[in-house]
């Protein structure tokens, strides 16, 4: 039973909200924020108000979730390939920083295509076409400076 509760995604996410609220409350203890310079409230009043309100709501969500019948449990398992894609998405900004837009586009699009089971030929064609096409559209036509990477 305890294992089931710990694995329930809804309880995990409500617990995350609780942690977020506590983080904001602890950040609000900064003396610089508590002393109002121009107004009586101070800079921490507003975030503290909502962080305090978030705590009972998160606890109530966890409580109702534990009380709920087992068949009501929501949120299925995340497929392993999707977890790989999450990791790839999280790494995208790092690749963008290191290699620039073209490299990021080629690598991320190719791996994404492989995750969704496209053939190698299709993956290569799509990643090259998309990366260069979007680069030309934004960088050349619309003059949006895309990152070039620290190695280039």
């Amino acid at each position, binding site marked *: 039973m305890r294992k089931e509760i710990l694995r329930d995604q809804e309880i995990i996410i409500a617990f995350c909200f609780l942690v977020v609220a506590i983080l904001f409350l602890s950040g609000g203890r900064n003396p610089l924020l508590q002393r109002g310079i121009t*107004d009586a409230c101070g*800079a921490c009043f507003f975030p503290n108000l*909502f962080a305090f309100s*978030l705590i009972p*709501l998160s606890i109530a969500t966890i409580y109702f979730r534990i009380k709920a019948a087992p068949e009501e449990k929501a949120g299925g398992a995340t*497929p392993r390939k*999707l977890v790989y894609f999450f990791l790839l998405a999280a790494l995208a900004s790092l690749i*963008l*920083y290191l290699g620039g837009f073209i490299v990021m586009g080629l690598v991320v699009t190719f791996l994404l295509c492989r995750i*969704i089971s496209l053939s190698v030929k299709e993956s290569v064609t799509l990643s090259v076409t998309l990366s260069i096409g979007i680069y030309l559209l934004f960088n050349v036509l619309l003059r949006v400076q895309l990152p070039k990477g620290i190695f280039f």
Partner: protein
Amino acid sequence: MSQLLAGFSNFFTFQLLFLSVVSVLGGYIVGFLPGLTATMAVAILVPLSFSLPAEQGLLILAAVFISAVQGGSVSAILWNTPGTSASAALCFDGYPMTKQGKAGKAIGLAQISSFMGLMVGWLFLVTLSPAIAKVALQFGAPEYFSIAVFGISIVAVLCSDSPMKGWISAFLGILITTIGIDPIDGVPRFTFDTVLLSGGISYVPVLIGLFAVSEVFRNVKAMITDPDFDKKQRETQRITDIIPTMKEIKITFLNMLRSSLIGTFIGALPGTGADIAAFVAYGEAKRWSKDKESFGKGSIIGVTAPQAGANGVCGGAFIPMLTLGIPGDAVTAIILGALIIWGLQPGPSLFLESSMLVNTLFAGFFVASIITLVVGLGLANVFVKIERLPKKYLVPCIFLLCCVGSYSIQNSIFDVFVAMFFGIAGYYMTNLGYHGSPFVLGMILGPMVEQNLRRSLIMSNGDPMIFLTRPISAFFLGVVVVSLAMAFKKNITGCKNS
């Protein structure tokens, strides 16, 4: 009236018409692409417009402003990717319509409602500018605070099925906006002493993450778990009639009118914008609708309301700018700067000293709105065909556009990370019944609530009665209390019945 007609006759030259068409097309494409906003397009065009006479330059800026807001609706409907922040509210019902194979209808309705919003805004701009500007000037910090609280109270209506989750989402959205430099005291808050967080978290990458990236994740999951997903999708999607039927127009007409009026009024209030208007219009449409259950599932009223509201802002934002020299939103602030560089002083004297210029601008606004409608309806078929491409090719394209879109707002790689983070968070939150709409509402209205709450308290030396002693503020707070009480009562009755 005769001056307006003179403005129209001055406008109808080949050069001005050609410039309008090109600007509308350009603005439409900029709005369509995620991450490129109307503000950005107008800012880029300002230096170019100085090489032209004032009336031509002004017309280009106005046409781009109008069409970019409208272009943002298409990507929101087709891919759940708001092209501009003003289109975020359109995702709630526009994308479900696309999933039902009604993308063409949704785009058609969005174009018609945008046109309605633009026309109502234009009418008020031409006829009632000075009177509206006078009312807008009565609004001080307490009134702005009350309006923002009123906007946030829409959460009770938006999430009537799971109010607790709705409020959690809204509070999280508000908390996220408090990261960065405090707007009143100027001290850093919750930045972990990093430069990256000192500028705060921009809401466009969050929007892209919550709506578009999380949708990419859902599609990838569907493709992984069901190899025939793409085939099934194409079987169920049809190009429906793009032009809405008379019956649909009849159903949505009053709602479009109300939303356009809301948009025009909010646009006339300095410091607001199309995103706020779209959310308030959507919330009010749901509040007044007899069929609240259909919202979020592809309701046609849910498509027309935010779009009419967002476009009503275009006309409304010009009112304080031209009559008082106070910009209604970020775009009109840029246009105001351009006017001053052209040697024109916005304010009551502008109508006397440069009457022809102002009336040509009014005529250009009107004609650009019609061109935008024609372009929007004309391109709808092309956009729907793009949407019918196999998902296995579209998903990588949307993902890359999300990366570029979130980067190009501030040329920041950190914003790409933010979009990805909120994409993963949005994926789980949506799966577990936490809507993205209250989160975004909290992010957009949170800073307005905080800044005006604190400004009001500074004005009153800490006395909170300032919110109740000013009639407009007291009125809006009264409406908030009544609507929250009604929503609470409805929930209690629902719980007892079930």
